């Protein structure tokens, strides 16, 4: 379980958000929504300690991640898979090598076992034939899939998606949404999805956290969101041209 408690973050004099508290239960998919610049990605980067807060704590299974020593933190990070906005594939190696990359350093697998695990991960994201293509040869959707395959190859407990559907056409976005649902169901993974794509939120999320005006402005289930009178949330949803 992930417990975010009274988290406050600023960059210099610019406050990003203050006093954010959210609980993310095992197996749950939480969507963090908000305008561009509201600090959604910043919040996500606190979960696997890519950033440190000014105040507050994040507890993973009861342990404060910001107090961990580096060796422990490294182990914790391996429990997270992250799909970055641009997939963040290493462009000097092939797509296959990208997926096998963490296994080569953090597992005792033989070459055959690595190959099998990579193919299994690629199969889960419906990419069985990428051969020796470099990331530059892949389409945006395929890059995201390879990024997702790399994120799940170590079989993480938590998956973090940063704008998984941004820059993709509606059909490919739907395919990525299906993958997010599929990952949560088949791998029993706890997921956090950073997005401002309401279509994606309605399809994949169990709960929604809305960041606005430098705070957690609203937090609840999808059903509660549909009936909420929260002005800013309604305006945000309406701006996405969705009636719920």
């Amino acid at each position, binding site marked *: 379980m992930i417990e975010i408690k009274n988290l406050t973050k600023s960059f210099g004099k610019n406050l990003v958000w203050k006093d954010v508290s959210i609980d993310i239960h095992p197996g749950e998919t939480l969507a963090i929504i908000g305008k561009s610049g509201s600090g959604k990605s910043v919040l996500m980067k606190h979960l*696997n300690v*890519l950033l440190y807060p000014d105040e507050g704590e994040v507890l993973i299974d009861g342990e404060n991640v910001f107090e961990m020593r580096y060796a422990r933190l490294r182990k914790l*990070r391996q429990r997270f898979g*992250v799909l970055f906005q641009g997939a*963040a594939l*290493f462009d000097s190696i092939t797509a296959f090598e990208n997926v096998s990359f*963490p296994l080569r*350093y953090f597992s005792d697998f033989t070459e055959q076992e690595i190959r099998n695990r990579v193919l299994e991960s690629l199969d889960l994201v419906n990419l069985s034939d990428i051969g020796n293509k470099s990331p530059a040869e892949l389409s945006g959707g395929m890059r995201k899939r390879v990024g997702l395959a790399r994120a799940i190859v170590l079989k993480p407990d938590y998956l973090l998606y940063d704008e998984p559907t941004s820059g993709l056409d509606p059909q490919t976005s739907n395919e990525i949404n299906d993958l997010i649902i599929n990952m949560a169901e088949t791998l029993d993974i706890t997921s956090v999805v950073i997005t401002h794509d309401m279509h994606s939120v309605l399809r994949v999320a169990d709960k929604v956290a809305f960041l606005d005006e430098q705070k957690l402005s609203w937090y609840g289930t999808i059903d509660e969101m549909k009936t909420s009178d929260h002005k800013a949330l309604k305006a945000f949803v309406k701006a996405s041209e969705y009636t719920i």
Partner: protein
Amino acid sequence: MRLFIDVGRYCRLIYEAIRSSTEFSMYWKNLINEMVKTGYDSLPIIMLAGFFTGAVMTIQTSYQLVAGFIPATTIGSIVSQSLLIELAAVISGLVLAGRVGARIATELGTMSVSEQIDALESMGFNSVTFLVMPRVLAGVFMFPIIYVTAVVAGLLGGIASALMTGALPVSDFMLGARQVFTPADVSFGIIKSFVFGFIITSISCFKGYFATGGAEGVGKATTQAAVLSCIYILLADFVLAFVLL
């Protein structure tokens, strides 16, 4: 204020690289790769720069020493000693500040702005161990080899120049070079090349690692890496000459 912040971040990056240097299993493959890119791949340009430096210096020295009572061997002495204690190291450093420094800053800068460094960290890698340490070590290990190559190329350039222009017999050039040779000059040049290797690679890693702002940010980091490397090479050259000679 910005300068103090940058110095602090640079020192922290280098401290982190040194602290994590024991994790050899994480970066030895990268180290070999970087040694090839920094050292082996730089040899052609270094041989070219060294050869022409030696050739031009021989012509210019013979042009300046026109008095008949100065023996021709003096030209060989001046050219060889200048190459050993100054030119081979500094010319190599300045050439490689552009070639190696710009490459490192561009590579790490692109990785930084495209979140590849974040991706490494999020997988559990120490990105400094993985990216910075092998590049700095490769610079420190390979620059002395580059320096020796530049000296040899420079001497060959001097000999070729003496032969082609008839400025002095090759035997006089070699005799002059041998007369003034001391191992201390080579040690001085090697110490310089260690320092220059560290300066170029560490500054370029620093600029690339902390690059922000997309393609423009990477371009800015690359330019700054090359310019700062050149400035600090010249400063270090002065300090080392002052302290060691």
